[in-house]
């Protein structure tokens, strides 16, 4: 299985090699290609649009700095996502320390006004009221995700939102698959309990 992973074809291989030679334009191609997924991981981790933007920028910059040390044992994209996840977790720790004295808990999720402003335009077949309701629900769901601890949050984001496989997540987070699963199931339970409180009848 390990061998199989090492021989994995990385679609970014060419551009990564160019980057290693100092080609900045090649890096731009990679940024454009991965920024959306990077941003969505960061956004679901942070629950805040501005924070997510900052973290994605930092992640790409540190990826550029470290690209020479990227050995290609994993796919480049996996490597990128690891960076953004780690940065997001560190940032969350910082914020948590700052908000320590304030009363944020599962019952009082961190408000996420940003999603209201920057939310995707809803599909046209929804009425204004429906759109508003949908947005509200999404905010509540995000609020519940926000209430999770980092190690539970990251598996939920990667598995249930981003749709990575257990194998990929195990690679990404460098934890055994079993651990990924048990964390995920606990995360889902916590989100379920949270949503029941926030939304009421599911």
């Amino acid at each position: 299985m390990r061998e199989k992973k090492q021989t994995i074809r990385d679609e970014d291989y060419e551009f990564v090699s160019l980057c290693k030679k100092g080609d900045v334009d090649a890096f731009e191609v990679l940024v454009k290609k991965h920024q959306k997924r990077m941003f969505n991981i960061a956004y679901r981790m942070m629950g805040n649009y501005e924070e997510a933007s900052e973290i994605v920028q930092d992640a790409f910059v540190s990826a550029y700095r470290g690209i020479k040390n990227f050995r290609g044992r994993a796919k480049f994209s996996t490597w990128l996502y690891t960076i953004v996840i780690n940065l997001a977790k560190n940032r969350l720790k910082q914020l948590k320390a700052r908000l320590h004295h304030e009363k944020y808990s599962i019952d009082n999720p961190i408000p996420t006004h940003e999603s209201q402003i920057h939310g995707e335009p809803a599909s046209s077949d929804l009425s204004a009221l429906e759109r508003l309701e949908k947005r509200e629900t999404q905010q509540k769901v995000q609020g519940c995700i926000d209430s999770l601890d980092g190690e539970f949050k990251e598996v939920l984001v990667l598995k249930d939102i981003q749709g990575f496989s257990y194998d990929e997540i195990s690679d990404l987070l460098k934890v055994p698959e079993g651990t990924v699963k048990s964390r995920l199931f606990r995360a889902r339970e916590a989100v379920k309990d949270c949503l029941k409180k926030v939304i009421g009848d599911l």
Partner: protein
Amino acid sequence: MECNDIQEKLSAYIEGIISSEEKLLIDEHLKACQQCNESLADLKKALEYVQKLEEMEPPPWLTQKVMARVRSEAELKRGIFQRLFYPLHIKLPIEAIAAIFIAITTVYIYKTIQPEMKLAKAPLEKIRPRALLEEKERTPPIDKGKPLPGKPAEQLMLAKEKEIPVVEHVEAPKAPAKVAKRDEVVPSAGVVKKGELKREALPYELRARALIEGKREGISLTINVKEIETASREIEKAFVQLGGKIIKKEYFENKNIIAAELDFKKVTELFEKLRPIGEVKDKALAFEAREGNVEIEIEIVKISIHP
């Protein structure tokens, strides 16, 4: 199986990543347990909520911002050496600092040396006449047979000094109206007549200075003429004929000064041409056999006919 055990496995049950035995057990339990059925439904619903979360669009400026930072990183990677010498990125690059440093040093050195140079020049003027005096005492006045190497000017000077008292024309009454340096020798010639003592002291100084000037400027001549204007014109003509270049023309009340650059080889010819114009007196002849052009300065003075 207890409800707690079942509920722990519901997530895996939903995903179908569970052994068939466990699945059978859970299926059996769900048929009978309302609570676990509700849990399953809630979990499915919660999962649905999470999975339905919409994808967000990153800010449109994201790539641009990232690349701006990356590019500045790339610049930093060029290395400290190159950065220091890269004028666009550092407001005051090392070249500018170096240039200023050199300028300051130059000025400083120049200012430090200048007074020394003045000091060095002053004794030279005093030492020279003394050296001349000594030499004069030692060597016979006219000894062109074996000129001292490297000091032909002094040798000439010596010869001239001996001659000066012998010079016939007397300009005794001619007071040095003009205090120009060129004039200084003329009264000295007059002074000479008055006393040996003065001749020993003052004229040497003056002559030495004239010598230095002569050395610097080439040849200095004084020509005594009857009519300054005509003589000036004739001298100019002589220069032009010999292919010289006139560099300076100065007109004073009772004298004119013409300076010109002339091929050294033509100097003798010039002297021949000058002789019919007036009485030539070489004031300071820095005759060093050299190649190329020499600067010749001719002072045209109206002859003073003594009674």
